[in-house]
């Protein structure tokens, strides 16, 4: 039983989660227009491959939206970390492939050094670069051929929730736009998809409200665990990575993310299973449901403190076995990160409040290098041959 009320444990990250649905809904029309005009028609037709790159929340957003590109954009899409995309892929990929590639480089601040580096290297290799950023005058926007601006409003200062979901939404809208322009879907179908996305945002406030108190209960349950592992497959792997990141940023906790299948190869063998909290992200209509059910049996036998985020058969089994479920309404899986990401965000917010942890360790020594984001923004740019 939680003695402190949710309100007493309020913190800026939780406040950001609460403010995000309204911000997304308010910014939707502007973002839709920006996504619609982000890439010119000839460049959409020129694009045979989309490479999405970003770091931190931008990486998770790219991974979360990859499936949308496959389904809605009818274009080959892949996600690469910026260091790999820049220093390896741009240098060694077949030249003709590079020239037909659109690099979608994400950085909310527009100042991430590695993302700027990748954008520079890809442009040098003949690719077009689209910057997805809040900062119209930032470093990344200055390098890219085109910009997709994120209308992210001022939100409570905390590890990012709103900016991450704005990036996810922007990419989902961009994927619809690609499909529409390439006539893979009709204009009416594209408009219907946009309307559906907007209607999901209208429901997001209720999703947050419904998850808030249960997430606090779960946070209290796993607060004594030494490690929290986040597990998911497909777009839910992005949510797992996002969850681990939020726990690290907000609470400084040992946290990691693992692909659903990889968990059986790796985390299964951890020799202290009772010291691990496991957050399994599995949306109700996901093709990962069956495998998740198999894993839950192993996790239960090992004594994991298990939380299922999502629904369906996996959530039912977890509940029957006495584990926690953070229920998330079933929606199209390619858009599910818009809903499921809320659970780990709230979990991290509540855990950091329970721990009394400062976000990013307050930028105090020995973490003071990160105080001005120097650790990710001030880094020597690699140049081929030097």
């Amino acid at each position: 039983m939680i003695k402190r009320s949710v309100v007493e444990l309020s913190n800026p990250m939780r406040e950001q989660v609460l403010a995000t649905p309204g911000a997304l809904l308010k910014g939707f029309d502007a973002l839709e227009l920006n996504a619609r005009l982000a890439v010119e028609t000839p460049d959409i037709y020129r694009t045979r491959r989309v490479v999405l790159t970003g770091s931190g929340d931008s990486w998770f957003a790219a991974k979360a939206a990859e499936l949308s590109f496959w389904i809605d954009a009818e274009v080959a899409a892949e996600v690469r970390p910026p260091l790999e995309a820049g220093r390896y892929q741009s240098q060694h990929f077949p030249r003709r492939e590079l020239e037909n590639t659109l690099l979608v480089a994400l950085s909310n601040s527009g100042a991430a050094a590695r993302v700027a580096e990748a954008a520079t290297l890809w442009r040098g290799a003949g690719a077009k670069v689209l910057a997805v950023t809040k900062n119209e005058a930032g470093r990344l926007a200055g390098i890219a051929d085109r910009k997709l601006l994120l209308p992210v409003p001022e939100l409570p200062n905390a590890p990012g929730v709103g900016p991450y979901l704005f990036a996810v939404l922007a990419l989902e809208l961009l994927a619809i736009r690609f499909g529409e322009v390439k006539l893979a879907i009709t204009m009416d179908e594209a408009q219907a998809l946009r309307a559906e996305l907007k209607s999901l945002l209208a429901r997001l406030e209720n999703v947050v409200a419904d998850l808030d108190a249960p997430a606090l209960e779960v946070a209290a349950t796993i607060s004594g665990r030494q490690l929290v592992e986040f597990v998911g497959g497909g777009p839910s792997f992005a949510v797992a990575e996002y969850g681990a990141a939020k726990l690290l940023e907000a609470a400084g906790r040992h946290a990691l993310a693992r692909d659903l299948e990889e968990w059986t190869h790796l985390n299964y063998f951890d020799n202290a299973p009772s010291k691990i909290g496991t957050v399994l992200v599995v949306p109700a209509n996901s093709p990962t449901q069956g495998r998740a059910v198999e894993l839950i049996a192993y996790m239960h036998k090992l004594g994991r403190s298990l939380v299922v985020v999502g629904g369906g058969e996996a959530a039912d089994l977890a509940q029957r076995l006495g584990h926690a479920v953070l229920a998330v309404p079933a929606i199209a899986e390619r858009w599910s990160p818009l809903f499921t990401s809320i659970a780990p965000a709230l979990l991290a917010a509540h855990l950091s409040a329970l721990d009394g942890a400062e976000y990013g360790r307050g930028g105090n020594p020995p973490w003071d290098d990160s105080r001005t984001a120097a650790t990710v923004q001030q880094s020597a740019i690699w140049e081929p041959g030097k």
Partner: protein
Amino acid sequence: MSLSNHKLSTVANAAYEITATVREAVAASGIRDGLCVVFVPHTTAGLSISSFWDPKGLEDVHDDINRLVPTRIDFKHQFDTPQDAAGHVKSVLVGVSLTLIIVDGAPLLGHSQGIFFNEFDGPRQRQFFVKCHG
């Protein structure tokens, strides 16, 4: 004077004969002698009068309209799609209204003439209006 509204669902780039609907609208108006305006409130569709005898002839019309205004990717209008941009041009060329003479309660048409709704985008939910004056 009477105004009637008529709906249709279209597929991409096709002609739909609406002669019977227009005849019924004119008859329902009760006007024996006057004028009838058929109007399409869309910017990627149009109206035309053509022969109804051979459906292949209608395909020829659309094929040649497509040859005149091919769907291409360098239209300046990029808010929607290349097909939509081409549709705007086709609509302007073909026109969105027809004026017909009403004689003895029916539109005056030659023995081969049919009235056609031309879809230059699609598939879409479309409509047209018929207004009669006498």
